């Protein structure tokens, strides 16, 4: 007689478990600008235009993260409309699907296959060897000990985040009225240290006697997804006297923006334009142009100019930058922007060497 009850529990448990697993994916769908089957429709007519087929596999979290993956998606759509390539995007679930998706895209006759995120490094290197006729590109590729081992059909796309962070540091150093600024990092790894090092150098460049408060949310992956910790760290930095905080901490940054709202102080976004997260308080954002890099790589492939090896994107390549638009033009005076643009020129010219560690 209790059998139906047992089944009810079983079904409920599975439902809860499945819902838990799927949360990330569905959250992505909610925020995505277009429905999931839209890529097919425009693809059909434009395929005739270039005949080039592009596959792309997203990082953990998938589309709708308002940051990294969405930026890659914009680059892909941009290439579809402008270059007439056929696109196919896959959101992997569990870890082994990253590899399987890359392999199947390559086997299905795509000309260029992207892996978005450093997690793809090992898999894409292996699969590039298995499919020598297909071209591969990996965003945030981890450099192997011996870079000459990178297969000839693979390009590792890397960003000089420290250069963009240098400009952000300069802006913070000019804007601060109390000569104290803050930095909140996510996970304490060399990638995030690049942001911090560039930022510190930028602040010191325009304001040698400024103080920089710096803190990390943790040493695990969760440090990128811990808004409470971010808020705590930011509040303590605002109370410790800083009036501008730059974050490089993914979702943890939401807490930094909350703290900025509470204290009515400045915060600076990262990766994408984060103005809309806290319109009252976002001074600017450091841009990491994954979209530009994805588009440029596709464009080069279409033109038959694909280059393998490592490619770095800094200020000179328009791979990083800062936001200056209608939303924040009354927050950054023309004088500030001119000075920062001057610094950009000096970095591109090699007159300023930005440290990354």
């Amino acid at each position, binding site marked *: *007689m*209790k*059998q*139906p*009850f*047992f*089944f009810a*529990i*079983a*079904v409920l*448990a*599975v*439902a809860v*478990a*499945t819902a*838990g*697993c*799927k949360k990330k*994916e*569905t959250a992505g*769908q909610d925020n995505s600008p277009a429905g*999931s*089957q839209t*890529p*097919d429709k425009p693809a059909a007519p434009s395929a005739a235009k270039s005949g080039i087929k592009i*596959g792309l596999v997203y990082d*953990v979290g998938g589309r709708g993260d308002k940051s990294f993956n969405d930026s890659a998606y914009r680059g892909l759509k941009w290439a579809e409309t402008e270059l007439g390539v056929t696109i*196919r995007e*896959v*959101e*992997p*679930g*569990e*870890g*082994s*699907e990253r*590899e*399987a*998706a890359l*392999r*199947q*895209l390559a*086997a*299905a006759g795509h000309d260029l296959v992207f892996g978005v995120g450093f*997690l793809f490094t090992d898999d894409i290197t292996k699969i590039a060897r*298995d499919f020598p006729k297909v071209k591969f590109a990996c965003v945030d590729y*981890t450099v192997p000990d011996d870079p000459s081992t990178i297969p000839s059909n693979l390009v590792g796309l890397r960003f000089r985040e420290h250069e963009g962070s240098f400009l952000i540091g300069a802006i913070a150093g000019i804007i601060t009225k109390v000569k104290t600024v803050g930095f909140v990092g996510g996970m304490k*790894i*060399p*990638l995030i240290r690049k942001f911090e090092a560039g930022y510190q150098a930028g602040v010191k460049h325009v304001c040698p006697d400024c103080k920089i408060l710096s803190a990390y949310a943790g*040493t*695990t*992956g*969760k440090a990128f997804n811990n808004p409470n910790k971010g808020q705590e760290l930011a509040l303590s930095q605002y109370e410790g006297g800083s009036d501008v905080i730059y974050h490089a901490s993914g979702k943890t940054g939401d807490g930094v923006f909350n703290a900025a709202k509470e204290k009515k102080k400045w915060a600076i976004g990262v990766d994408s334009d984060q103005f809309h997260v806290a319109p009252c308080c976002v001074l600017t954002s450091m841009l990491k142009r994954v979209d530009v890099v994805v588009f440029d790589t596709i464009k080069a492939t279409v033109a038959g100019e694909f280059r393998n090896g490592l490619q770095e994107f800094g200020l000179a390549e328009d791979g990083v930058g800062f936001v200056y638009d209608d939303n924040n033009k009354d927050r950054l005076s023309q004088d500030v922007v001119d000075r920062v643009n001057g610094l950009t020129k000096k970095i591109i010219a090699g007159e300023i060497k930005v440290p990354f560690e």
Partner: protein
Amino acid sequence: MITRSVVRREAITIGIALAVSVVAGSLLIVLTGKSPTEVFSLLISGTWGNAYGFGQVLFRATPIILTGLAVALAFKVGLFNIGAEGQMIVGSFATALCGTSLPDGTPAVIAIPLCIAVGMVGGGLLGSIPGLLRAYYGAHEVINTIMLNFIAAALVLWLGNEFFFARATTRTEPIIEGARLSNFDMFPGSNANTSIVLAILLAVAVHLFLTRTRRGYEWRAVGHNPRAAENGGVNVRATIIGAMTASGALAGAVGANFVLGYKHYFENDMGTGVGFMGIAVALLGRNHPAGIIAAALLFGTLSAGGLTLAVSVGVPKDFISVLQAVIILAVAAAAATMYLRQHKKGDQAGDPQKGKPGQQNQPGKGDNADG
């Protein structure tokens, strides 16, 4: 004892459930503007229709056979282990630590069994905790196994980041050559590996243990009615602890597939979800080892084929998740309906489902309600 009528009823149950799922799935496909026949035939041809695809089905089925067995074994003793996910994580991590710390050149005959055993011990230890809590304090294993999933994931991530993960990654160093399982040459490019043999052997072992040994009989007796079993001289506490430990150990063997047979290191988030999938597989497989293997192959086909659909026709992967959920709901609903109908008849007649596997767990729940 499985009578013919039970087998027939099970077959009807599953048949109805699958038919409902195909209809519901077709409706969904039509809603996304595609042809159901095209999508379903691609699902089959992309998996069972070629060597790579079939290899991927085996690769995907292997871990869920193991977690399905873990859940089913606990079911038989009247326990509901929702902790296979955490046990799988701890077991895989332990397997990887074994594989990285053995000296280079350790022969495979030692390294492979040892690392699998270490993983099973790891999963078993985690499983024993809710077993002990249930046996001595009556704390419900459902709550405790769910909670331990979070603890296990966080603990492994912390240990990895603090001590074991390679610099700037979320994975361990690679395991030694001797600990690696080989892939099948007949499925080129796929990740299928010899751990499928381990999974099938364990399924046979679980079946023989439950049906052919005295201890197995005692365990099933506890699952039937713990009070009666206790009066009959069975140590119920020891059985509960033993069953939860064995269940955890089965889930802990998953590392053989992901670590020894595929990546050759442990990576955070590796295999996420296979523990929960095990619950579905046990339910669909009616807690019988043969049924579990069949259900795991079905779910393996769906997840391998889901990716193929995403790559080849752009059907979103969520479609497969929905289809899996529909199958689970349909099986549960069909089984409950069949049970109720049968039960009305069975009250008067000779009650054929007494010996039916999968229904013996019910008294365990009753016991719990009593305190």
